[in-house]
């Protein structure tokens, strides 16, 4: 259970009503969280009840399309016991009262499930106490109905709106001792609940960072070196200043941190289009630094060379893998590869900043505003207390906006110009200045015994380093499936130095590792002549919890029974092994545990004689614990994540040449389109475990499930992505 030191403050809100602020500090709930550490979790919530009974709940986290702006207020409203129709939601700014204002890692549900309910329950208890005092009855004789306190014995009732002012003076109860609702009596949690912002979205009202408008605002573009971290030597910036609409053009000397302000040339104009047009006239000489070996072809050649030797370091060793292979009835080897990826948020990176009278005001579509504020403070030499960051709706996160490079650029340019400035990147800027999902190479060897059971597995993982250390999101842990379930296992790693910066993309690590491992396991199942579902259940063995070894990412462990449950569910729902499919059509299975969620997926795909792929259908089965908080959004997130995986597998992969990303737009990096998009059927298996998040874990199985379906359809094994670069025609 969670143990926290709790601070809850109540006060009168401006204009009357109850203002409820809770600060919850303490160690992360190790039982539910993947990342635990001293003081890793600090949570806060905010409730306002107007005399009219209108309840305003502040949503503290960035909304990137994951639905957290609905989910957190639903938790509070449930325990507060109000009608959802009476709730208004306000988006918080970056504010020290609201720690944990980040959208990442599918963490909002596990981190907030109990604390946000406690905030609501505390408010309810205070409202009951206020009513009991007014009636002169014991509080325990009172109850609540949505929006009011009732005294059943006398039939009296008072609305929350009428009680709010008195409730604000009531001592705050001990959060840890608050009774929480029995889930059977939930009225809001568990109800399919529509996103309250949709009416504004469908009428085109300004909500996103790129829509921000400030009086007197100018527009900026910023040209950086396409070799990441290249230094500016000289430019013709003086010639730019006379171009139509241009108000300022200047060189910027940045630092060495690829996540901070970099060298470049800023062009500021009366309109964004004029700024960007003027930029076409820029002539810049860059010092690109050493780009030796910084190309996709070179990476592949280096990986193949490294694979011939021993891994540079070991990740995990169990048993004696050589002895395991010697005992095996079948041994196969295969090399897998996945490419670099860009996040391609549809809203290009942008930020609006205004520096005046020593204060910096920022409007940013960011997933992670707090480090952005710190970065601006450190780079510009402004105290953080003089920086205000407004969080706008975000046109797609996917992990890209955990970094705040666009924020520090806008702030720097605005400070130089002395006017409000909106910086907007082009699509090409966005694709060429990302924190890429690192490519990876896996050199596998696997052995199955005469009974068709996996007994030995090795992986030489060739990944990337930056400045001598493993690149961000380019690592693999010692619990990578099927570790802990195989007697003889050997994972090792070697690294290739990389100039381009890397970072988390939706389901980081898992989105690549899942493809490689789940495809190779399917390959082993077929080698053994086994059905992939039975092969998987054999690996998992009996239902049990496998604890995590100590380490930086120690989590709650891996429960084989939960994974078995979703595999069996998806097999049942998809008609696995029971559906007679036409020639050229096949079903593939994959399963993956990430971000505390257990997901198994089946893809049915058809490949025609020309090699064209049609994804016919996707079935998703997930286990995210005891409660689906908003079933409507849960289905959307699972569908979207699975389709994100399908689209990534089909059409996305970046090419590196001379240290630069070759692609720049959606003509060569192909997100999923309507005509490619299959139906996605989603099923959840409700279990007794604490609820966990859903932004990411449905993604990883989709890619290997599609690859395995293509094998089932064609007999061609997919060992490299994207599929658009593979020849699947009958004559290939």
């Amino acid at each position, binding site marked *: 259970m969670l143990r926290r030191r709790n601070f809850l403050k109540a006060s009168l809100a401006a204009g009357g009503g109850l203002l409820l602020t809770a600060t919850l500090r303490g160690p992360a709930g190790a039982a539910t969280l993947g990342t635990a550490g001293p003081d890793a979790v600090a949570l806060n919530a905010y409730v306002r009840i107007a005399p009219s009974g209108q309840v305003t709940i502040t949503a503290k986290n960035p909304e990137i399309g*994951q639905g957290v702006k609905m989910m957190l207020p639903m938790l509070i409203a449930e325990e507060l016991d109000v009608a959802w129709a009476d709730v208004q939601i306000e988006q918080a700014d970056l504010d020290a009262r609201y720690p944990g204002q980040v959208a990442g890692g599918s963490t909002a549900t596990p981190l907030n499930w109990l604390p946000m309910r406690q905030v609501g329950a505390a408010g309810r208890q205070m409202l009951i106490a206020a009513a009991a005092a007014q009636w002169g009855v014991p509080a325990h004789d009172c109850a609540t109905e949505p929006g009011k306190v009732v005294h059943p014995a006398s039939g009296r009732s008072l609305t929350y709106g009428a009680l709010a002012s008195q409730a604000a003076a009531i001592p705050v109860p001990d959060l840890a001792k608050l009774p929480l609702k029995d889930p059977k009596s939930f009225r809001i949690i568990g109800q399919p609940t529509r996103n309250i912002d949709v009416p504004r979205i469908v009428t085109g009202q300004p909500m996103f960072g790129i829509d921000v408008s400030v009086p007197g605002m100018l527009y900026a573009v910023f040209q950086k070196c396409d070799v990441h971290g290249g230094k500016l030597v000289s430019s013709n910036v003086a010639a730019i200043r006379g171009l139509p609409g241009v108000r300022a053009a200047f060189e910027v000397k940045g630092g060495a941190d690829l996540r901070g302000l970099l060298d470049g040339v800023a062009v500021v104009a009366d309109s964004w289009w004029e700024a960007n047009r003027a930029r076409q006239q820029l002539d810049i000489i860059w010092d690109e630094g050493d780009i030796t070996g910084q190309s996709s072809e070179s990476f592949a050649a280096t990986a193949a060379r490294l694979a011939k030797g021993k891994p540079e370091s070991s990740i995990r060793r169990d048993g004696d893998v050589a002895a395991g292979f010697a005992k095996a009835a079948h041994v196969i080897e295969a090399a897998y590869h996945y490419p670099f990826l860009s996040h391609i948020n549809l809203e290009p990176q942008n930020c609006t900043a205004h520096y005046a009278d020593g204060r910096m005001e920022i409007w940013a579509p960011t997933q992670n505003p707090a480090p952005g504020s710190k970065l601006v403070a450190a780079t510009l030499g402004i105290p953080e207390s003089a920086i205000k960051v407004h969080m706008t709706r975000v046109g797609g996160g996917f992990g890209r906006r955990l970094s705040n490079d666009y924020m520090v650029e806008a702030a720097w340019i605005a400070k130089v110009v002395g006017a409000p400035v909106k910086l907007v990147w082009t699509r090409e800027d966005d694709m060429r200045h990302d924190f890429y999902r690192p490519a990876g190479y896996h050199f596998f060897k696997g052995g199955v015994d005469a009974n068709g059971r996996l007994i030995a597995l090795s992986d030489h993982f060739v990944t990337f380093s930056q400045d001598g250390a493993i690149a961000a999101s380019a690592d693999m842990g010692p619990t990578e499936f099927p570790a802990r379930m195989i007697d003889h296992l050997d994972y090792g790693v070697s690294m290739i130095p990389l100039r381009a910066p890397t970072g988390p993309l939706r389901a980081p690590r898992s989105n690549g590792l899942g493809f490689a491992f789940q495809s190779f396991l399917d390959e082993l199942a077929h080698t053994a002549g086994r059905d992939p579902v039975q092969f998987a259940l054999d690996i998992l063995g009996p239902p049990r919890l496998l604890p995590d070894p100590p380490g930086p990412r120690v989590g709650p462990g891996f429960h084989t029974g939960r994974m078995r449950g979703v595999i069996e569910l998806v097999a049942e729902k998809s008609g696995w092994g029971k559906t007679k499919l036409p020639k050229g059509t096949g079903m593939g299975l994959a399963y993956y545990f990430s971000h505390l969620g257990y997901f198994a997926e089946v893809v049915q795909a058809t490949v025609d004689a020309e090699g064209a792929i049609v994804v016919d259908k996707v079935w998703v089965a997930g286990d995210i614990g005891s409660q689906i908080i908003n079933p409507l959004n849960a289905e959307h997130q699972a569908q979207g994540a699975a389709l994100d995986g399908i689209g990534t597998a089909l059409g996305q992969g970046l090419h590196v040449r001379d240290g630069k990303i070759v692609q720049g737009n959606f003509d060569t990096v192909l997100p999923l389109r309507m005509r490619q998009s299959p139906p996605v059927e989603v099923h959840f298996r409700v279990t007794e475990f604490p609820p966990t998040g859903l932004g990411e874990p449905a993604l990883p199985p989709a890619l290997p499930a599609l690859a395995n379906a293509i094998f089932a359809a064609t007999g061609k094994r997919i060992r490299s992505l994207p599929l658009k670069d593979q020849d699947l025609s009958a004559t290939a």
Partner: protein
Amino acid sequence: MQYVIEVNGTARRVDVDGETPLLWVLRDKLDLKGTKFGCGAAQCGACTVHMDGQPIRACQTPIASVGTARITTIEAIGQTPVGQHVQAAWIELDVPQCGYCQAGQIMSATALLTHTPAPTDHDINDAMSGNLCRCATYTRIRAAIKRAADLGRT
């Protein structure tokens, strides 16, 4: 240079270079921010508006080429019955996730339903495949177009 264009039923005067794409006139000069910038290359459809009822990519439409054509944006699409049905269906089916592409999706869907009141899946694929949704809300976009078609029949 001065241009007068008809936007959402109103004549609007702007003083811009003739090459300025309609997208940036709408967003930065006329403060109609519902039309979105996504790629600047007619690849994503986020900037879709109607020109005389036809869906076009505003990022590739110079202001000088607009002439007397009627421009309709997301801010006014609800003034047509079909646009109303599409918006109502989008709300009912809770289509958006991040929401950034949805203005363009709605403009394309409204144009489709205006010409094809009962579209098949094939019609939907043809009309909607120029509009990217990075959140991949396609299953609900498809369902909402069919729902809007139903609303148009009743």
